[in-house]
């Protein structure tokens, strides 16, 4: 008798907790202010501790990493040597390509985003949980960073700021698939919407007018259309595949991001806010 009463009470408690969790999810999905404020406050308190702990445990972490990656280290070392030689040559080629990209972007009539001020930051940690692609950078509101500001590397767009405290910010990577970005295909009038697939640096671009001449290898950049949270002309990546639905007059493209999202050390926050 007592046992069944206890079970009944347990069921009610569990149901109430489950409902509370659903309520919290609903509040969060509606962009509830208190949730964001609480997360920012926790970030402010824990960030200095996290940095200190990172320094203290770094020898152990390095030993841990080498223990689990030892098999790959030798191979990686050889690959890196080869890559270093190749990169020396690529530096020259890239600077020319970058110049060409700037010229190309100017040709389509929109000012290059390089004129917008940026804050240089250092990546201090990766994710706390096991889901979601995000990283933490070492500058926050004191440096003028605000939520939703775009984050780039020298290669292109990598994500946007989603949490800000005084001296820390959290960046959600574009590859996470948690938000979308409007893009244009440089040299054409094609525009579309790109979204990450939650894994490597590949994106899926949709809603492209199939009558536009998009080709494999074409460069994509943020479109910056009215209301977009990103400024125009931040390089995103290159088109690697195109699929066309003739009936719907719509094309879908795969985009390989310019920026390498693995082992990021530095990132720049573009101090840009959408008009209005």
């Amino acid at each position, binding site marked *: 008798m007592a046992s069944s009463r206890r079970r009944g009470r347990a069921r009610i408690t569990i149901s109430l907790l489950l409902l509370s969790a659903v309520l919290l*999810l609903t509040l969060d999905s509606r962009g509830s202010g208190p949730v964001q404020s609480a997360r920012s406050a926790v970030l402010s308190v824990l960030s200095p501790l996290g940095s200190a702990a990172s320094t203290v445990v770094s020898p152990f972490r390095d030993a841990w990493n080498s223990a689990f990656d030892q098999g790959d280290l030798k191979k990686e070392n050889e690959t890196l040597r080869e890559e270093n030689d190749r990169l020396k040559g690529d530096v020259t080629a890239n600077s020319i390509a970058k110049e060409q990209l700037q010229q190309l972007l100017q040709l389509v009539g929109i000012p290059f985003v390089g004129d917008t001020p940026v804050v240089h930051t250092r990546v201090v940690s990766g994710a706390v*949980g096991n889901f979601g692609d995000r990283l933490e950078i070492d500058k926050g509101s004191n440096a003028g960073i605000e939520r939703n500001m775009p984050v780039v590397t020298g290669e292109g767009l990598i994500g946007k700021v989603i949490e800000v405290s005084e001296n820390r910010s959290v960046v959600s990577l574009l590859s996470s698939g948690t938000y979308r970005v409007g893009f244009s295909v440089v040299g054409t009038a094609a525009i579309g919407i790109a979204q990450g697939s939650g894994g490597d640096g590949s994106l899926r671009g949709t809603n492209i007018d199939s009558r536009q001449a998009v080709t494999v290898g074409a460069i994509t950049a943020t479109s910056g259309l009215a209301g977009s949270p990103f400024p125009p002309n931040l390089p995103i990546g290159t088109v690697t595949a195109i699929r066309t639905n003739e009936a719907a007059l719509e094309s879908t493209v795969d985009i390989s991001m310019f920026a390498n999202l693995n082992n990021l050390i530095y990132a720049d926050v573009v101090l840009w806010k959408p008009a209005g």
Partner: protein
Amino acid sequence: MDHPAVRYLIVIASAAFLQYTVVTQFRIAGVSADLLLVIAIAAGMIGGAERGAIVGFASGICLDLMVTTPFGLCAIAGLIAGVVSGLLEDATVHSARWLTMVIAFLASSAGMLSFAIAGTLLGRSDLLSGHLVTILGIVGVSSAALVFPALRACRWADPEDVLLRAAAR
């Protein structure tokens, strides 16, 4: 200080601090152990499904404050892990170390799976990817390894409940 709720809060806060500062630095294939989930599992084993649900919910909220996934997903994962561990512990006739580890593995997998499913229902299609199998495996094994110190911490938090349940069984 002697009230179980206060002691559980201390245990959860300590686990959250360790998770943020130390545990996340040690990863295999990009996945780290989840101390807060282990605390929920241990609480479920010691105090039953209801206690596991309450502690799991509280520890999940704590983790929700440190991550960027939708707020409440970690609470659901902690709650489910605590309930599953409590139900499985109640269902076992005898207790053995290996059995405790198996329950920890299964409860942690249930928690992580519920996280991914709930996230997918909310439009996060990336959570149910191939990487989920790696996460289930690594978090499950680490939970099985860390459940014993977590059980000690939960026994400290609620010594009375341990005695009551031992007598009831």
